[in-house]
């Protein structure tokens, strides 16, 4: 996949986002992303020196609830949506480490 004319490396971004894209989808996205990024680049017209960034509309900090013991969600209810389990006890996942690394 070639980088787009704006320099958007679609393959690199897809790898970062953990998305498998077909070559056709990647090519289409390159054009669409260029178009959208081209639009949002209007923000570079503005002088934002000295302006603090806003992360949340209503800034709040250190919101802590009372430390009261309670029951959490039941194990089996949380596992009910897992794509695969080991004996309804654990989430089953594909191999994570290569076998020689396990020694």
């Amino acid at each position: 996949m070639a980088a787009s004319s704006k320099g958007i490396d679609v393959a690199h971004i897809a790898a970062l986002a953990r998305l498998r894209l077909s070559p056709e989808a990647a090519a289409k996205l390159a054009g669409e992303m260029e178009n959208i990024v081209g639009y949002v680049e209007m923000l570079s017209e503005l002088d934002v020196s000295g302006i603090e960034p806003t992360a949340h509309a209503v800034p709040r900090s250190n919101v802590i609830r009372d430390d009261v013991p309670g029951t959490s969600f039941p194990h089996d209810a949380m596992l009910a949506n897992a794509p695969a389990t080991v004996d309804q006890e654990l989430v089953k996942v594909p191999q994570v480490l290569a076998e020689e690394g396990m020694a």
Partner: protein
Amino acid sequence: MMDLKKLTMSGAAQLLAEKKISSAELCQAYLDRIAALEPKVSALLSLDAGSVMAQAKESDARRAAGKALGPFDGVPVTIKDNITVKGQPCTCASKILQGFVSPYDATVIAKLKAAGMVLMGRANMDEFAMGSSCENSAYQKTRNPWNTDCVPGGSSGGSAAAVSAGETVIALGSDTGGSIRQPASFCGIVGLKPTYGRVSRFGLVAFASSLDQIGPMSKDVMDSALMLDLIAGQDERDTTSLPAAIPEGGFAAALKDFQPSLKGMKIGLPKEYFEVEGVAPGVKKVTADAVETLKSLGAEFVDISLPHTKYSMACYYIIAPAEASANLARFDGIRYGYRSPNANDILSTYQDSRGEGFGPEVIRRIMLGTYVLSSGYYDAYYVRAQKVRTLIRKDFTDAFEKCDVIFTPVTPATAFKFGEKSDPMQMYLSDVFTTALNLAGNCGISIPAGLDPDTHMPSGIQLIAPSLAEDRLFRAARAFELTRPEKEIVSPL
């Protein structure tokens, strides 16, 4: 015989209180209407009729025993498919959540259950609330009850269509950049985006966490206030929910025995919103007529400026995708949701599950968000957008020194036809009037104002108030609703 299409929460509460109808009769009537209309409208992704009738019968038993949980015990409400209800599906109209069953109730759902309301069906939406037409649903096209060739808007289009078609009494939607107000306008109903933090987001599947809010989609302004009274409040499970009290007796109490007068209220007209190009003549006419109606109520109009309006869409389309790309990282094919059968190791589990599970618009936003957050671009795009967000917030703070509420159109045109906006950028720009207030955290309401004389489709007006000043929105919107020339704006279905 009651008219299901026009029946409101307050109307249903009265019928139930006077024992003119039981909840079971009411819910059965709606189920019958849903069965008749859904082939045309397709507003709902799922509906468990057995559960609806069981809830209704429990409500009737409570009422018969004198133990009703309040005036709305037994009144049906429809829920957007991104808000969790324990034991019910929650797909967000995405293949990646096909078959998912929610293990817990969202806080808003717990509150509706505590009020005895009957949860009736899950409404279609754009996948993960990304879109303005419901065309991004992975499952079905919802049709606009006013003209089934047209979209209902989005992303809360299923909720809007269900209310407009009279398939339910009221619905909940969610709004990140207009997703309640735009479909409300397209379908001729009332849609409220509460102040950020007014309503708990616990159990709302996150799209852009600093922008998302749940809100009511209703047949009138009174119901909007009644529903906000039920769902508002701080929640220890949402650290961004605000410790703000609702007014004594609730927002709705102030609207009872209401004399429609807006004497003393200053309404700001932001010049930048009226300079936007491409606004349909019919929308301009409805908007101008609405100004006259509000003037006749005694409101004083003042010219204001929101100088950074031009930049709000660009700011939104950096911040919302950035937050979405982080939030949607949780869909990894491991603990829940779709896992690709083609995957054979951990990386391909992520890549294939996500690549196959997400639809094109969601992939577009994740890619865009990942790009603006990636090394080398973070400061140029994301941090700059956050700084522009500060400027947009300041625009509103300054404007509200000159006026109590701000008046704008909701959308540049009435509902468009399926496939009409196939270019993503063109679709994004249909939200030009609605996104700025999410960035600022203000509250806003869309109220039907009339029919566009050219398209014969409903057009709304938007009122915006400062953070936590929903009471001003309700007062102005209720006065307008009681005074507008077209008393009843009801879909033909």
